[in-house]
């Protein structure tokens, strides 16, 4: 009976015209990596939250401010607003949550590259931000490529975090529905109303496996009041999709970052 039933099912299936599998496996891998990365960053975020809470207590008891005394010399520096150059916004749609590709004009940077550093990331981040006052600069522990700062354009400080990671590209598999193209970055914008530290998250996935995540917080502390988002969606996309991010970065950026931020507070 088993064979007969199986034969009937197979006969039925042979009459079916299934659609092509397409990039089902590649899509599953990319989604899995995105979830894995989000989980990792949330873990780091929990650490950051704990540190932020500790700092808040420290300030409340009146023993100094965050900048200048809480951290080593040079850390928590307040940058001149004029240091952050205005950027050219990337044309994007303004839907609530979406994924799209940016092609052309965003080819990965060439030239001499070195292992990325948190200082280089902060250096690049401050170049990509819109004008404003930056404070509370910090980096993640254990060589995790994640940095954080507050940006205040006059409406109050908002927190921005950038994390960079790289997975191996999927061997022999197309990265997207369209064939992968050099210089094409897939950008996803998500809104997370239940997590104000990641109120808006912009992911940029490069064909070589480089993943850039920009978190735009809508609070400075999950237990605290709302804070103005430091970046609009377009501005966050511009930051995330910049081709200079990577686990290796332009040697000049790394060098300049080291000079500009010789020491930085560890925030998580």
């Amino acid at each position, binding site marked *: *009976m088993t064979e007969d039933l199986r034969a009937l*099912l197979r006969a039925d299936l042979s009459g079916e015209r299934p659609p092509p*599998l397409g990039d089902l496996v590649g899509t599953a891998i990319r989604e899995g990596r995105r979830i894995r990365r989000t989980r990792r960053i949330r873990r780091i975020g929990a650490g950051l939250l704990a540190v932020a809470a500790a700092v808040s207590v420290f300030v409340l008891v009146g023993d100094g401010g965050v900048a200048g005394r809480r951290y080593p010399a040079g850390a928590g520096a307040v940058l001149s607003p004029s240091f952050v150059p205005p950027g050219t916004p990337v044309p994007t749609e303004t839907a609530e949550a979406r994924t799209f590709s940016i092609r052309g004009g965003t080819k990965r940077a060439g030239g001499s590259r070195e292992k990325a550093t948190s200082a280089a990331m902060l250096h690049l981040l401050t170049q990509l931000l819109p004008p404003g006052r930056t404070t509370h600069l910090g980096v993640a522990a254990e060589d995790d490529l994640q940095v954080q700062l507050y940006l205040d354009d006059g409406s109050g400080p908002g927190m921005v975090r950038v994390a960079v990671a790289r997975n191996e590209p999927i061997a022999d598999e197309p990265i997207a529905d369209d064939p992968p193209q050099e210089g094409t970055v897939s950008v996803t914008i998500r809104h997370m109303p239940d997590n104000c530290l990641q109120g808006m998250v912009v992911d940029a996935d490069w064909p070589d496996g480089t993943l850039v995540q920009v978190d735009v917080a809508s609070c400075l502390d999950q237990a605290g009041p709302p804070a103005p988002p430091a970046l609009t969606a377009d501005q966050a996309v511009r930051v995330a999709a910049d081709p200079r991010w990577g686990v290796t970065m332009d040697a000049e950026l790394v060098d300049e970052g080291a000079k500009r931020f010789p020491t930085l507070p560890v925030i998580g």
Partner: protein
Amino acid sequence: MTEDDEFAEFANAHAERLRTTAFMLCHDWHLAQDLTQTALTKLFLSWRRATQADNLVAYAQKILLRSYLDHRRRRSSTESTPGVLHEPAYRESPELRLTMLDALAGLPARDRAIVILRYFEDYSVEQVADVLEIPVSVVKSQTRRSLGKLRELLAADQLALFA
């Protein structure tokens, strides 16, 4: 070879089979595609643990079936009742004969999964019980009931297969 490469190799080798199972469960290729992708994503996230399993394919099938049953539960309040078939039409007109896939669609979701695992994937009663996390006795009783239902639904020339 990295873990991601190992996963990609496994997934590429078995995605078609998983999707076919999903299709037999839901009778909708697009939903089958979604269910398979969901199952593969979950498998990717638990890959290290999955590779410790005795039968990796069965592990993947288990994830797929749970994804399907979860999907059914989420949609149960809005979906029409399955299995509303017009028997006289197909019994009187041979060209309208009900296919096995149509008949399967007339079974409740879990019973359909039992039949597919037992008679298409060739799982033992114990394996089906493990995958669906139900007692062996339930697998046996539901299998009998499902075969009886299929017998009612299928055309006369196919009934001999259930003798």
